[in-house]
């Protein structure tokens, strides 16, 4: 059964990767429906795997259909204790590769275990760590974040 934490995870996943609130809510809506459908058909699936898999599928569909918005400022529906980090994330999203971004969001923002992520994305766990390493290295390659990190 989906909990509030799952809903929040789905919303944040799309929020960080689609960079658009409207699209994020719409994608989350579709994802939740799809997850519920999948679970109702097979109760023995690992819920986290189903959630990540479905989010990944919906994300790919959205990325095919829609262009990413160019760093629109965060709106009121999402609140962050450090808004400047959100801006840095948007900067990162503009120049990073999507697989690394997905891995970072799933591992550090949504706090899924690497083995679950690997199972859901159907890649070896080493690949996940590799993507995480690449992502973490390139995350501060912009002036805003560099300044923040130096502090």
């Amino acid at each position, binding site marked *: 059964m989906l909990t509030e934490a799952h809903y929040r995870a789905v*919303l*944040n996943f799309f929020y960080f990767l689609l960079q658009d609130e409207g699209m994020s809510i719409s994608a989350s809506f579709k994802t939740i429906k799809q997850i519920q459908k999948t679970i109702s058909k097979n109760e023995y699936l690992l819920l986290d795997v189903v959630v990540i898999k479905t989010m990944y599928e919906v994300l790919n569909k959205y990325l095919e259909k829609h262009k990413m918005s160019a760093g629109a400022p965060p709106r009121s*529906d*999402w*609140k962050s204790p450090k808004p400047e980090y959100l801006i*840095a994330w948007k900067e990162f999203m503009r120049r990073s590769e999507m697989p690394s971004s997905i891995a970072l969001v799933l591992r550090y*923002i*949504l706090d899924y275990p690497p083995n679950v992520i690997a199972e859901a994305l159907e890649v070896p766990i080493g690949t996940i760590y590799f993507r995480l*390493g690449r992502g973490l290295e390139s995350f501060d390659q912009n002036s805003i974040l560099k300044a*923040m990190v130096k502090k």
Partner: protein
Amino acid sequence: MSTERKLSCFFSRELFPLYIEEQLDNARREQVEVHLKECQLCLDVFERVKKNRKILIELSETKCSAEVVTFLQKEHHFWSDFIARYGWSKWNSNLKWAAELCFVAIALAATIHLFPWLNLAKSLQGFRPGIPKTIPITPPVSGTDVEIDTDTAGVGSPPVALVQPFIGPQLPPDGKLSPSEKLPTVVAVVKPAPVAGVVSESEMGEESPISDMAQQKMAGFVWRGAVQFDVLSPEVAEQITKSIIALGATKAGKVDLGWIRGTQFYYHFILPDENYEKVLSVINAHGGIVDVKKEKHPRVVKKGYMRIIMTLEQEK
């Protein structure tokens, strides 16, 4: 001297996430630590990676509003969502006015076209109190289309009106109608004055094509036909006319007996029943062959009399 191979910068950097999360075994962990001590560049990268990881973990504190979460948690159905989004309350006032106007117009049009007004009017007409079924027409109004069967009057029968009396609502005593009462329009038909030398069918006494209502009201009969002669002269026709009159025939139409229509002689008369055979014998005596048929006729003659319309004509 250590027998372990030293890690390259590239490989050690790949192990940073695992090192930070303490997923490496002791041997690998030591290798990474040794490399970090020896390589300042990788140490800088390691520090950045650690800080970036911390930033990302802090980003996980980013939360969506409760309304959005509630929206997602709620069960959604197409129609309820549709109504919530585009329902009546979401329309602006102009659109509402236009919709109401359209609704009223459609309802009005449907009522006008589909409601059986005619049946209702007929049924209401039947229930009107104080409306006479027939209106006696005595005396006839000159110049109007009211005809009196003068021929039957001449043999003792009462005059019969040819026109149907108008049966409809009567005006109230003050002569004013309420707005709901709408009387059908009645148009009085006035016959034009006959042109000299030209005689119409109705003036000859022959009926023009009879309406459906007249067909239903046909109560009488007429013997209609033609009498063929090998040789027909005006003298013969005159003799026949005199004989018929002598046998008690009276003119029924508007033209005299023996009226000349082209090459024919026209007769429309009322005759006592007992003299019919005598009239036939008179005609036969002049060489005529009578071919008459009994037909229905709106006008009724008195019992013991018969109506005859015949033409004398030369055989072609």
